[in-house]
């Protein structure tokens, strides 16, 4: 069986013995140069666009910053915080005094004294 198969296999392997070199397709150089031209012009365009892109990015950044500055809510200062805390404290005190009837509180006030 092996012997039966080996002959056609040898024939198959030797099928490339007198092979000729395949020539490159016609106008190969023209197409190659066109591709190189296209690649280099694309990279030149990219390079030329770079300053424009940088300028665009800078303007965008400025606009975003301006928008954020205009619309930001001012953060409270220390004085604001103190005033707010004092107001809250007075408000709490006032509310706690209101829980008792006015007369009673006066009476208690007198007795306490």
């Amino acid at each position, binding site marked *: 069986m092996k012997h039966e198969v080996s002959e*056609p296999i040898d024939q*198959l392997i030797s*099928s490339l013995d007198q092979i000729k*070199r395949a020539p*490159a*397709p016609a106008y190969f*150089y023209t*197409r190659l140069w066109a591709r190189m031209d296209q690649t280099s012009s694309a990279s030149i365009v990219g390079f030329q666009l770079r300053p424009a892109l940088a300028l665009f990015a800078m303007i965008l950044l400025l606009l975003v910053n301006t928008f954020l500055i205009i619309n930001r809510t001012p953060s409270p200062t220390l004085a604001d915080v103190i005033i707010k805390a004092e107001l809250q404290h007075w408000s709490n005190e006032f509310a706690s005094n209101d829980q008792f009837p006015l007369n009673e509180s006066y009476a208690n006030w007198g007795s306490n004294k």
Partner: protein
Amino acid sequence: MTELELIEGLKRGDQSAFRVLVEKYQDLVYNTALGVVQNAPDAEDVAQEVFIQIFRSIATFKSEAKLSTWIYRITTTRALDLLRARKSKKRFGLLKRLWETEEENPLDSIKDFNHPGVALERKEDAAKLFEAIGQLPENQKVAFVLHKLEGLSYQAISEIMDNTVPAVESLMHRARLNLKKLLEKKILNP
């Protein structure tokens, strides 16, 4: 124009030197690429990439080596890169096919490949052999293609593959054994 003048011209970015280079080596590059990728449009694509790479990296070429050796090396590397890309595309295609009904195999182009340099009466046999060559491991494939299609000696192949001559002999021996196995399978189970 001597090889040295050609290299000097290329290093200066001389377009006419580049044209001479392309005209001198285009068949060598195309034929080698065609042997590896086994598809005419892909081989042309590889050949174009090879010359673009030569144009861009000629400054790195060391004159101790032969220009043709360097060109063969770039060609085989580029051709193998394309095959790897094709294989990964095939893997992705298998996943894609789970969602799509249309069947398309990126390796279909390898089947029934006919090299234009094969004599008409041997075309059928050569197509079978090329199909088997396509299934060889990368190193064996490159060595076999360079030897059979470009008629290079083992010494020249060893320089291109940056290997020793006995290593190339071993590669060729293993390539033949593998081809026999693959063809045997094909004959017994057509």
